[in-house]
């Protein structure tokens, strides 16, 4: 049986450099909310918000680091699986913009013939998005009493 999502406290969140693929100009998510209010409320009602948000914030840097390593090793299945998981878990936690950003990466990986590059500008955008999202999650988690 799997381990449950842990309850480690959130301290400083450092986002490692985010790998990017060649994506079409303008394909990065625009205008999606950092956190979907209805999902936040659902998680709160289920008593999960105070547990899952800190756990996600803690796990995210490692996940991104693994994605970077997969990119460095040109491990296509690994990249796709990680991007897919990040996309799904972000969406499930209401991090809509972040989910869409990982979705862009996953979709690019699915496309035949995609090539890899380190686009500093887009990488910076995603890093900023990760920071903004995790900060918003930390605020929501802090505002949710333990259950």
């Amino acid at each position, binding site marked *: 049986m*799997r381990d449950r999502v842990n309850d480690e406290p959130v301290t400083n969140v450092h986002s490692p450099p985010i790998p990017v693929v060649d994506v079409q100009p303008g394909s990065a998510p625009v205008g999606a909310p950092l956190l979907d209010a209805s999902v936040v409320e659902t998680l709160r009602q289920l008593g999960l918000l105070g547990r899952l948000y800190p756990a*996600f914030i803690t796990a995210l840097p490692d996940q991104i680091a693994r994605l970077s390593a997969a990119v460095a090793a040109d491990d296509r299945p690994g990249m796709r699986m990680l991007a897919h998981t990040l996309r799904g*878990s972000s969406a499930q936690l209401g991090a809509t913009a972040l989910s869409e950003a990982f979705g862009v990466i996953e979709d690019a990986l699915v496309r035949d013939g995609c090539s890899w590059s380190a686009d500093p500008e887009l990488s910076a955008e995603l890093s900023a998005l990760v920071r903004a999202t995790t900060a918003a999650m930390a605020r929501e988690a802090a505002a949710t009493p333990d259950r």
Partner: protein
Amino acid sequence: MRVLVADDDPFSAAVMEALIRSAGLECLLASDGHEAWQLLQTADAPRIVFLDWMMPEIDGIELCRRIRVRATHEYTYVAILSSRNKQRDITLGFQSGADDFITKPYQTEEVLARLRVAERLIRSTGASVNLRRAIAEARESSGGDVIVRAEHRVGRIIFDRGRVAWAHISDEPGSLAAILAGEGSITREEVRAVLEECSATGENFADVLVAWGLITRELLRTVLTRWIQTKIARIAAFPAPVVIFSPESRVASSGVLLDPEEVIAPDLLHSAVTPDNGPLMVPGGATAHALSDDLARRIPQSLQQAIQIEGALSAAIFDLRDGLCLGARGEAVDLDLVWSKLRLAAMSDIWDDLEDIMISTRQHIYVLRPYTKAPPRSIFLAIDRATTKLGMVRRALAECVIA
């Protein structure tokens, strides 16, 4: 009932687990396809399975295919979980043998409604009409065994004067002495001594236990209820069973008789939807949604109108969100049949394009039609094939609905 969630994403799995538990069901988690497959090999494997499409080791689609080729296992309800939501993905999911396809991120109400559909289906696939008939006969008898056989396995539900005395499965351990010894409060030596006393005096095992102060009658009853409940649920889940009721008189060894309602699932205790002029609950843990005063008035009128259609045998209206039967008229309707049709109707994307669904058998035609679209309710009509003009029925039924 236990539900398996196989998902390598711990966050999605945690949300699904919370939803399942909120529905009162037990949840097992597996973090990859291999672990899920191992859990599905166990004797008491969950019969409702939610599989993430993309997982390490074995993906959800492949796992679903493997589940479907197992001929010797009880039917397993499989829902594919995925953030893929394109039509071809959904089609591929169903082609792999899935019963359902749930897209991420999960919508709470949708998942809960689909869980209820899964629960009903599993209950109805195990709860054959014959089993329910046999139980009904046993309840009316002075005593005897409901015998359920699936290949080499034989389950027995032992009745005594309309109440349940015991349940047993041939290839599983199950003596009362072993159960009580397993409880920890009574040693095997004590059980052995009690058995010797019973053998010498002819007294009832339970009576001696209680008389010797080894267990209270209340605790004994609690232990037995739990045990028998579990056994009967497992017997009811036998795949494609042969079922008979064998009347015979015997003395129950435990000395404790339980009301059938305490140990048998409600759907096994109701042979059919009974004709009724008032609101009617469908067994299976359905939760009522409030009806507006207007709708509460309209439903009996609609049913009355429907049952007067030429050739109509039965009419019923169901809430598709939770399977609640809001009312019925006419002859009794087989719940298994209605549920199977409802499940089809519950696929909203089908309803979007169809006016009604008809299923014909040699003698009957069953027509399902949306009664209200939001929230989704459906009217079900059983008609006599020999005496009915189908076009007329469809037109007449269309006049009964609100949607």
